[in-house]
């Protein structure tokens, strides 16, 4: 073989470097330094709390080991079923909408618009995402109240004469998806646009020369080539969706209780912890959500080969 493989070259240079007495640790140290900030935060606000939740979920308030009893207890609670049904309906709508629409918008921005105009639109889409969750809910509280909404004509045309009619239980998933999409889609459009930019121009040109129109290249070339980004988006959007809390909680307060205080599982966990004083039950609920997120992520990762390194 005459072609020198890149790995060998690196190995060789490191060997040489070591022989020359250059400390190899320096490079490693900088790396550790760079990840340390994240690692510490991950430990303090991610790993340790998760561990604590696992501990709480398997014990009672006297620290005795309870096995699965906490899980059985919360699953038998009368609010458990409705909360998970609510979040399921919400998730289906939210995932379909966010994945299909953000990809579609990104493809249109990439293929059908001049780069300058596309940048303007990307910025516009991104603005709502810059608002905090609370602020965006407040914006929608105004938008959806026929008494004050700038779109009150539209609301009334749809048969909603007052805010309570808008907040009917069957409308809640739609309202929450609207809020989530409005705040979250902009960020994903930017990410997807970036992913589309990674596709080499030659590939698209080859497609064009073979007679593919913009829709054909989108469907057969662009979308398959950004599949991994879509999977990545699905995992994150799913995890964020199951953890829905701020939006229904604020709607509950703002509607003076017309929305159930345990609409989403996370709210139920909150009620368990802070009204019943049952932190163990709350932890068990949070483990349910964690397990759900992990299962979906595992399926998506293994089925899509998300982390498989291309060996070309």
């Amino acid at each position, binding site marked *: 073989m005459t072609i020198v493989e890149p790995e060998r070259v690196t190995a060789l240079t490191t060997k040489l470097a070591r022989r020359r007495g250059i400390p190899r640790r320096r490079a490693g140290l900088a790396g550790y330094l760079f990840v340390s900030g994240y690692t510490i935060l991950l430990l303090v606000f991610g790993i340790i709390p998760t561990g604590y939740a696992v501990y709480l979920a398997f014990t009672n308030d006297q620290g005795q080991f*309870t096995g699965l009893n906490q899980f059985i207890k919360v699953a038998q609670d009368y609010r458990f079923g409705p909360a998970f049904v609510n979040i399921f309906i919400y998730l289906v709508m939210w995932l379909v909408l966010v994945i299909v629409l953000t990809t579609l918008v990104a493809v249109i921005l990439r293929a059908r618009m001049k780069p300058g105009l596309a940048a303007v639109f990307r910025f516009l889409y991104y603005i709502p995402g810059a608002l905090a969750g609370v602020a965006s809910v407040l914006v929608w509280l105004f938008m959806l109240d026929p008494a004050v909404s700038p779109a009150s004509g539209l609301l009334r045309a749809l048969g909603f004469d007052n805010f*309570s009619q808008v907040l009917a239980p069957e409308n809640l998933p739609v309202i929450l998806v609207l809020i989530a999409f409005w705040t979250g889609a902009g960020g994903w459009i930017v990410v997807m646009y970036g992913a589309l930019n990674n596709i080499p121009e030659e590939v698209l040109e080859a497609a064009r020369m073979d007679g593919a129109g913009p829709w054909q290249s989108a469907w057969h070339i662009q979308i398959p080539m950004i599949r991994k980004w879509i999977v990545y988006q699905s995992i994150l959007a799913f995890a964020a969706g199951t953890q829905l809390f701020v939006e229904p909680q604020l709607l509950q307060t703002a509607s003076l*209780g017309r929305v159930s205080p345990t609409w989403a599982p996370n709210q139920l966990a909150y009620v368990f912890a802070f009204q019943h004083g*049952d932190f163990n039950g709350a932890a068990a609920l949070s483990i349910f959500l964690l397990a759900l997120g992990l299962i979906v992520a595992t399926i998506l990762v293994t089925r899509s080969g998300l982390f498989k390194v291309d060996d070309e």
Partner: protein
Amino acid sequence: MKSPLLTSRRKATGALALVTVGLLAALTGCASAASTGGSTSATAFKPVTQSASSEITVWADSTRLPAVQAYQKSHPNVKMNIVTYDGSADGSTYLQTKVQLFDRTGKGWPDLVFASPTDVTWASQPTSKGAVPFAAPLDSGKLVPQATLDNFAKGSLSACQFNGNTYCLRNDIAQVVLWYNKTLMDQWGYTVPTTWEQYEALGQKVATEHPGYLVGAVGDTNSQESYFWSSQCPAQQLQKDGSLQVNLQAKDCTRMASLLDTLISAKSVSTQGFFTQGFDGSKVLMANGPSWYGQYLFNSAFKTPAGQIAAANPLTWAGESTAATGNVGGGVWMVSSHSKNLKAATAVATWLTTSDANLTNAPTYPAYSPGAKSWLANPANKDYFATDISGPFQKAADEVWTGWSNTKFSDATAWSSVVLPGLTAGKSLTDLLPAWQTAIVNEAKSVGYTVTTK
């Protein structure tokens, strides 16, 4: 070549399944997951080490804030840290949430809080094993003399009493009276109803003669207290044995449900709340509601001009001799058992709830009877109204039905999240009674009550 691999894999799967089953079997047979908090074992109250110079933190809602500030002004030597919060209104659990956290961290409790009566149900008991109940028993250790407690309006302290101790001082009562617009009633030649039957008849008359005008609204978080409490409906009645009776099919509930259904379909009772954004107050002819409706609904929210609104005695049912009315809110003051300065905190609570200096100008009707007299003697509390409200207010204060118990859960949740959306969707109250019943029963059971439905 492939078969050995497959069998070994199968074996591994089998072993894994066995281990899982074994583990599950082991896991399910363990200690109970039940929370031990809220046990009623009453241990004698032991104050923490006291310090007369210690600063006291007072949490009050925005309505009560000026009174606390007035105390600070007249007692400049007392070191106070005054904090505004939602005051547990509309079923808020902010205080409970915070106390749960303070109990876990072992510090941070306010010394004195304004709260809702519902809060006393959990604050009088430990939130978990080993925790000290948040509220200090005010009658033990003579923090508040018995003579003072005896002067509160009849039954108004029952919300504060648990296990033979008094855990709070009642700030105000919110007895339900019949509010009406005297100017409109006179103009249209209507007489003020004295019974529910007359009220219903007048409601139907208004619907035909003056469509658009209202004799009531049921869409607020507390409308059930104005109507169903007044009707003596056993929606949440604590029994002597500690169980909770929830029976919405009782005659006392169904009669109110059908009365309201009639008026809702006639469109003279709104399914919107009086406090809904954009509610047109000029269309309100009558409102069965608490004593604070006068200032807070008609004067502040509706901006009805002075001299139009009047109050009448609570409505009764034809043929019933016992008059009964509802109660919508009315706050309490609780002193923290963790306070380093119980004396100062109790002094503030006593001043706020019993002193003429504060009560004469109090925003709401005082629960302390001598204070209520001074309140009614103050023309500023009455000159907004078309007639003297003293009579109806005093009568209603003594007629509050005691069968609507102060429970560990707020009665606002089931009403607002189950009944009100149903009404908005066009269902009738009578149809919604079973769903409401289920919601109350579920909620009651989840906080540990034994429920009877007969």
